[in-house]
């Protein structure tokens, strides 16, 4: 930002607050500078995410590597935010308006974000499961020439994969699986109740009534841009960080199968379009939201790019194995095409193999960071003594 602009806005703020005594010492200037820098960095980082070229598959929107970048940026923003919040400030500020209301709300959002982290981690286990199934398909179709045996094997795994992806999308509830993972239908199965469970890809670690969409919706409660005098001081960065938190959790939930995502696209994004630093985030939100709406009708397990690819390839290969089964012989051309698709699938699996574990670890890192900031804020609140005396 050119020096003159900076000065103008700085002076502008002073004129608004003419009636208030402003500490014109270096501390205050430093604080304003930090805030400006923070907004700037946020803006830059998310612009980078928005401009990720779609044609470079590696970094495509909502691919594993894109998500990792997103989380990386979150951690950077969080660190800056923490710096602003904790250093050089009169700690009693936290207990005065508007922070006395904003901080507890922020803390509440943090807890919800933590639960989303856990749910997403659980969801990544599903993704791992798909990867494993896809690897079966790949290893079956890898063999040349593709024979009937391999085709059947691939088909079996494809069936499991597609129904797993389908079932998981139905909010991880007890699956009304349309396909069976048994190779035949069984009559008189003694333990009828237990059969459905085996269709579910991963045991669900999330509480029954927990809904990802509702959590994120709740996170947007009371999230409004601070106005006027409120906008100076710490209220602004708290708002900024909250918006980032909402976006990141929202994007994660959109990408990765998570319990109960109905209404995800209906969540109104809590940042007005005029907000400078929020432009890219809003852009991303719109882009992802559109994708979500498109797929919502078809029903998918999540927008994770690798999963999308897996689904697409799965369908193609399913057709292939079907035609193999029913038509007997396959032209060389078709066989080659199938092999190419299988190779693509193998590549997708490889990317999952490489990226899922680091992604999980990053989410864990995000978890830790949010916990740490929350703990420190809670301690600060307790120090100031605003919390009611616990003893009597």
């Amino acid at each position, binding site marked *: 930002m050119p020096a003159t602009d900076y000065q103008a806005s700085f002076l502008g703020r002073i004129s608004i607050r003419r009636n208030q005594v402003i500490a014109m010492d270096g501390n205050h200037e430093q604080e304003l500078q930090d805030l400006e820098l923070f907004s700037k960095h946020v803006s830059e980082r998310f612009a980078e995410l928005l401009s990720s070229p779609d044609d470079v598959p590696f970094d495509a929107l909502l691919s594993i590597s894109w998500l990792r970048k997103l989380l990386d940026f979150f951690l950077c923003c969080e660190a800056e935010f923490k710096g602003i919040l904790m250093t050089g400030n009169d700690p009693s500020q936290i207990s005065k308006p508007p922070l006395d209301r904003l901080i507890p709300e922020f803390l509440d959002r943090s807890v919800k974000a933590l639960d989303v982290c*856990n749910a997403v981690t659980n969801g990544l286990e599903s993704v791992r499961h798909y990867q494993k199934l896809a690897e*079966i398909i790949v290893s079956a179709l890898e063999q040349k020439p593709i024979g009937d*045996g*391999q085709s059947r094997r691939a088909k079996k795994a494809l069936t499991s994969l597609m129904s797993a992806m389908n079932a998981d999308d139905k909010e991880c509830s007890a699956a009304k699986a349309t396909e069976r993972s048994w190779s035949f239908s069984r009559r008189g199965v003694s333990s009828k109740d237990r059969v459905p469970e085996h269709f*579910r890809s991963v045991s669900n*670690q999330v509480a029954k009534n*927990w809904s990802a969409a509702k959590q994120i919706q709740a996170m947007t409660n009371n999230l409004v841009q601070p106005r006027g005098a409120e906008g100076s001081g710490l209220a602004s960065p708290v708002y900024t960080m909250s918006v980032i938190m909402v976006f990141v959790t929202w994007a994660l939930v959109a990408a990765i199968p998570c319990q109960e995502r109905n209404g995800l696209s209906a969540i109104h994004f809590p940042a007005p379009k005029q907000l400078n630093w929020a432009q890219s985030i809003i852009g991303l939100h719109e882009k992802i939201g559109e994708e979500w709406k498109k797929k919502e009708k078809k029903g998918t397990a999540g927008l994770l790019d690798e999963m999308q690819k897996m689904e697409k390839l799965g369908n193609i290969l399913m057709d292939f194995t079907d035609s193999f089964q029913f038509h007997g012989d396959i032209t060389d051309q078709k066989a080659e095409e199938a092999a190419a698709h299988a190779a693509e699938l193998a590549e997708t699996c490889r990317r999952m193999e490489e990226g899922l574990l680091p992604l999980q670890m990053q989410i864990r890192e995000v978890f830790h960071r949010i916990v740490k900031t*929350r703990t420190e804020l809670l301690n600060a609140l*307790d120090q100031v003594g605003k919390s009611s005396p616990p003893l009597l």
Partner: protein
Amino acid sequence: MELPENLNKDSNGYESAEKIILRWDSTASEDARERMIFETDRQEADLYLQAVDEIQRSLSNVSISTSSNAGKNANAVDDHSKVNTTIQIAMARLEDEFRNILITHSSALETDSLFDPSSSSISTPSHHELEEDDTLSNDDSSHHDLLQLQLQHCESSDSSTYRSTSSIREVDLMPSEAICDLQAIAMRMISSGYLRECIQVYGSVRKSAIDSSFRKLGIEKLSIGDVQRLEWEALESKIRRWIRAAKVCVRILFASEKKLCEQIFECVGTDIDDACFMETVKGPAIQLFNFAEAISISRRSPEKLFKILDLHDALMDLLPDIEAVFDSKSSDSIRVQAAEILSRLAEAARGILSEFESAVLREPSRVPVPGGTIHPLTRYVMNYISLISDYKQTLIELIMSKPSTGSRYSGDQTTPDMEFAELEGKTPLALHLIWIIVVLQFNLDGKSKHYRDASLAHLFIMNNVHYIVQKVKGSPELREMIGDDYLRKLTGKFRQAATSYQRATWVSVLYCLRDEGLHVSGSFSSGVSKSALRERFKTFNAMFEEVHRTQATWLIPDTQLREELRISISEKLIPAYRSFLGRFRSHIESGRHPENYIKYSVEDLETAVLDFFEGYPVSQHLRKRSQ
């Protein structure tokens, strides 16, 4: 179609094997769908397995022949394809058989295996204890009284009840015959390259078995948000249940699953049984630890300390077993999470202690306790630190830094300071406990200033500091940590307060009974001013009545202390009155209405003193024995 030469020898074997495989092709025949091979009979199963082996042998033969007989390709390729198909059919079947055997033998862990019948303390009663404890905890939750901390503490020392889960103990999750079958099937699947399918099936079935066990153990799926919202009392019983369940999970459930994997995949190498094990338990393990994690990050407040310490201790105890069970690379994250939770719990404990100290310092209630008796704060704090001393073993390890005290030189009036020089050689924990007592007194001193009557203020301090001393003496651990030096200081303080009280109240009363001012100098006759004397008596009576009326409602809860103070009062009052009466009664009695002035006998006063500090109001008129 002729088969290549080297297959001729086995052609009969191959053909009959192929027949068996095809007969059991479930996609082709109704009959094949109806029955399971491994449920039918031993012979069928063995035949089938042999058939699979035969086909597998053929496959490798065909591969060799295919590559070496490039010329006679067409047939070879066809046969290769045919054998492959047969393999696939066999593998699909084996997968189903594998799944079926697993399902048949996968149910929740039996409660019998949860409790060691050889354990000295319990056999089946243990099952009742499990439920009993739950009802007990329900009762606890109805106690809101802070003083019930003591009661709750008794509940928390239940580590002795579950000796049976004190170390790893694997149980047999399946009959050995089933395991043999599974082994046999697994071997064939893996050698045909169907390892992935094998792991998938295994994982999915065993996972649901673990889920059932979890439900049986009462392991809930609570979100972090849920945990933050619940009342702490409700959480306490959940923590208790979790501790019990976690021991069973790690030491019995997970350990047994691991053993099962090792057994089934014995012949095929550790990586595979690791993979299966993790496939099965990773999710459940994370779910288990998520609860402890949620507790470890919950908002800190003093009443949470002891359950957090219980949780910390339980996890600490479990850690070596967690490391033993989850010893592979792929289970790093679980070990790491457990260690993280442990460290957070420790941090939480430290934080709570600090928080407690601040809270005691800041406790703002201003309404003076009626009668100058023991303040609820004093009781709470002393009970609390008695409990802390019970947890000495853990806390000594956890508390590593000294309390942050005020500085003598800071001029800060809102925080006391503590002289560390005299407290050399004390553990940080002991320093914290002493600091808490220092802070408590500081707060009490502040509170005493709200009494309008200075005597009552002193009495209040006396009562409370005495209580502190009694509590310290009553707990050997606490006493050992506080140390006799500081104890002496405290004793001195309450004695000092007693003395101050006496001075505040009785100096002026006894002043009435002094000699000076009564003798009229130079007078020839009696030398005593009758009017002055009458005044004295009247003043004395009025003052004493007032003191008696007021201080009867004051309370010294400790019987011995009460007695001692009364005796001390008597020792000064009675002789003084007696001698005053002795010297001057004749002067009054020689005048008019002596009864207006000499209202009380010595015995009357002695009796009246017995009313002091009982905490009851007495009738306005003192009992008058003599008239």
